[in-house]
């Protein structure tokens, strides 16, 4: 009985992505939206791993997109577009002074009236508790460890791809994931028990 998980792969470029990419690189700015839209949720998820404030996370995503658009002509397709986007985001997250300007918007706090569907508290409480602990534990990791674990667990990237994002070897990426996992598991303890 082989207990290993299915080995995830490198993110692949679809035909439509290649099409939009070519149009973008040929100078068609309108192609940028359909090219990047499928990656926005993933970019936001990674940005939120690096910035707890949702407005900062948004700004990080937006700055990533600005850089991506600006550098798209030099993108050679040697890695997947998503890997490249993550690489930009991680670089920016490591150098916040390059893109953070001003203060994030203040939350409305108690006056905030949500216009979105809210899950029932009794079912959600345990998940929220786990998520809070998880966020806390992830925040204590180094940027590289946090990114590596996120890309592995959430995006299912393989180590080549993680290495591509972090600009390191696949073996080093593996060690980042392993170390990150060990630290987070040690922090979460009973929250992960059956």
């Amino acid at each position: 009985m082989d207990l290993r998980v299915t080995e995830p792969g490198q993110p692949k470029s679809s035909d439509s992505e290649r099409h939009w990419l070519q149009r973008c690189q040929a100078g068609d700015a309108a192609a940028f939206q359909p090219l990047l839209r499928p990656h926005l949720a993933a970019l936001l998820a990674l940005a939120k791993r690096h910035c707890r404030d949702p407005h900062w996370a948004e700004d990080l995503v937006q700055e990533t997109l600005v850089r991506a658009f600006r550098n798209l002509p030099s993108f050679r397709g040697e890695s997947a577009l998503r890997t490249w986007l993550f690489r930009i985001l991680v670089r920016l997250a490591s150098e916040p002074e390059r893109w953070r300007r001003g203060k994030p918007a203040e939350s409305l706090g108690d006056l905030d009236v949500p216009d979105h569907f809210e899950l029932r508290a009794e079912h959600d409480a345990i998940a929220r508790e786990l998520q809070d602990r998880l966020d806390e534990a992830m925040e204590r990791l180094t940027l590289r460890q946090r990114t590596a674990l996120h890309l592995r667990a959430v995006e299912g990237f393989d180590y080549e791809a993680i290495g591509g994002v972090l600009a390191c070897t696949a073996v080093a990426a593996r060690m980042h994931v392993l170390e990150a996992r060990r630290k987070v598991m040690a922090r979460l303890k009973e929250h992960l028990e059956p």
Partner: protein
Amino acid sequence: MSSLRPTCNKTDAVLAHCLDGDLDSDDLLEHGYGFACGETLQAHLRECAVCRSALQRARRLDAALATAAGIDVARHPGQVGAGWAQLTDRWLAPATAASAEPVEPPLELTTAPSTLPLQHRGLLLAAAALAVVGAMFGPWALATRAAATPSSHSVATATATTTPAAEAQATSPIPSPQPLRAATSTMAVPTPSANVATFHVASRPSTAATRTKVATPSWRELGVQVASSHATPTERMAAQQTLLAGCRATAPDSPRAFRALVEALAAAGDHDLKSRHLHAAMLQPLRDGELLRQLGASLGALDAAGQRLGCNELAVVVVAARLGEASTDRALRRLARRHPDAVDAIAAALRCDVRSHGGGRLLLDLWDDVQSRRSAPGDERVAMAWFRQQPPSVFTELAAELPTCRSTERRVRCLLALGASDDAAMAAVLRTHMRSSHHAESHAAALALAHLPVRLLADIASQEELDGEYLLRAALARADVAVARPWIAALDLRAGDRHRLRHGTLADFPEVALWFRDRGLLGD
């Protein structure tokens, strides 16, 4: 405070192997795991409870991270007070508009050392030249415009972003699209915080940034995204959150959104641990009172309809079966009394391992119900098939029910159902009940044992004393295990009896078992 958790020095190597794929020997040695090949680690894992527990926790961690990221992203629109369409618009439009800001040295982003082609260098030089032109004429243009139409700062900014750029473009021999607009605008606004004005104003909902219409996906498309195994967990959870918002009673199109949600959840799979956790997480909101009522109403409508169940109806049945709520289970039982064919769909739904508990009991209840109404097939074999390929938790429940159940009929069904298991532990339970003083139970246990996989039976045959165990020998003969062939040959059965031996019902089995007690003993 020191941890009391026992440790094992191979845990890291086991986690690396099981979660992260193969490590070659050099890697293992290099990272201090010592020498261990994959097979050794697998064997160690089977024996070491510490490593198994660590692996379980690591997998839970991965699943929790994926789920948390999905929930986090799905909640984001609520946190910042904007819908997804607005957000994508907000992020993407300024990116294309502000892309040529010559404000900072670019990050090194290419996968190889960056060497810009000549044409790009030319473009950059042209852009720089145009930016200088913009810087010279921008304030003038702004002042002229402000004098002509006294308006708000943002209007002035927006005007400045278009007019000089258009002029510059018109005079430029190089075709250079929108990026130049933002470049000149940044230069044109004579404030120290020009970049902030361009960038952050654009990133907030109150701005007059250029908007591009984004197509809103239909409920059906969102449903496809929720069920898609190609989408990331984040994307799937985000799509589900939009569907859930559409399901609110006050939403205008709530019945269609709800139907799309149900069909999506019915189509979602559990092909690995992560997707199973994700599927379970996506079912969670249906336990909310309002949605649960909608689901119950849909089930009730099926019950009343009295017609053959179609795909849409079956989707409701599948989701209700996976949910595991007491009210939906009751509704399913009512439905199965009118529609016995729904039990097949329920059994199929439960094979997706997302229901935490109660699956075994539900199937057993359904079996009781249809049997008591004689609406079930004539013998137990079809009902036993409902339990085939069910998750291990179903059989664990059945085994736990055996000692506490007071009804003989139900205990017999429990035992028969255990025959669909693939687990040596369940074989041990059946072996124990084969020695029961209650004949119906011991025969049911023997018949169930005969349905276990041959490898488990071969293990039992090699370990047990077979001489006095005629029920065991009958079970092994029915399963056609190699060790039993001489006994069957010694019985010298006619074709009809051979058929009864291999395919007979529970009612036939006591008589068949007696052949192995009275007529043929170990080939004599």
